[in-house]
């Protein structure tokens, strides 16, 4: 069985490039300044695992963690 994934944005590292929001809009939200945080508690719904990894691998600030639970 596939492991459940959770995404987390480190707010101290995020600089608002917004790549995660463009690549995985279901998993991330932006605040009024355009800085990102995970949607809800960061749980990645089944089927969106690829998008989680894609967002992580395109973050220029290395601010995104994908945690396997």
């Amino acid at each position, binding site marked *: 069985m596939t492991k459940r994934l959770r995404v987390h944005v480190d707010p101290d590292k995020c600089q608002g490039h917004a790549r995660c929001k463009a690549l995985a809009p279901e998993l991330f939200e932006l605040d009024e300044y355009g800085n990102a945080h995970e949607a809800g508690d960061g749980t990645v719904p089944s089927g969106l695992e690829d998008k989680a990894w894609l967002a992580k691998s395109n973050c*220029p600030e290395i601010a995104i963690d994908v945690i396997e639970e």
Partner: protein
Amino acid sequence: MSDISQPAAHPPVTDWVHDFDHTDPQWTEDPFPIWDELRAASPVVHTERFLGCYMPTTYDAVREIANDSEHFSSRRIIVRDVRPEITSRNAAPPITSDPPVHKPAKQLLLPPFTPDAMKKLEPRVRAICNELIDGFIAEDRLDAAERYTKHIPVRAIAHMLGIPETDSDLFIRWIHMILELGIKDENTLLQAVQEMTVYFSAHIEARKNKPTDDLISYLMNARDKDGNPLEDSHVLGSLRLLLIAGIDTTWSAIGSSLWHLARTPADRERLVAEPGLIPTAVEELLRAYSPVTMAREVVKETTISGCPVKAGNMVLLSFPAANRDPKMFPDADKVVIDRRENRHAAFGLGIHRCVGSNLARMEMQVALEEWLRRIPDFALDPAGAVTWSQGTVRGPRQLPFLLGKAM
């Protein structure tokens, strides 16, 4: 631009590793082999030109410097022949600001440039692109820089600022004076800054009695954390930044993208057939042809990637060279139009990430979508010459194309 004198040329470079010069014609024409040579020599190289200047050549060294505002100040952000005394702390905040004043100045500018705000601006940009294409689609050869790429960002930012889009030529002239001629000629730079101040002061004055729904009024109405309005010099500095940073940067990025597609039929045909791939392609074109090189001033001695770096020197912070580092990007020297993993640094890294990155991305995407939709067939005109801008922002300034049947 005949009233602007051309500054004297620098002596030619014979030893790139110890005497690099980013204004040399060879660098302007084709910088990529030079960067590879510098990177092979050292992660940080130095030149005595520009009163002393380092250049990090690897992605890691660029990231290290971009994230270190303790040793590297943003008070000077263009590498120039001269280093005049800094007289204003409001040169162009927040790009010229260091912590702790940087963050509040940056936060002020961010809300009008979020992806959601850009979605609202997108129809206007699409209309601008189509108006421009309407003007030349019946022709079979043209300069795409002069007729298309040059006009899109300047009109979009004028629209946001609430100043007439018809003043575009004036803005383009100031930018040329500051970013290109200003590297070697202080008087030209000061003249442009003075003209911009007069221009924007009039627009600020007009809005004191009659506020408008635009970025100028937004800045005039902004309050700091103590509830005080910004000083006029801060508003003027930020307006100067938005105009300078918002124009020839994206003009260059759109131009380099079209230049690549004109000479790479396979990529062009793929994007025509799969317009959904354009956002991914935009990222790769940003990586491969990043237009913007920034600068820092070393204010405290330190070590970068094992190389000692001494105060009093400038740093040429080449995000474009970082984006060609093969240690970071497989096939770094190739344009891989569907590259999936792309942590490129075209908009900078760290606290000075480009405020306008969402605007630039939207403009690039729309400009390519509309061009490819209406002009799927185009190529470089062998009878013409492509020319590139010099210095801080690199992009094609003449882009002779053949369209459709003329190919």
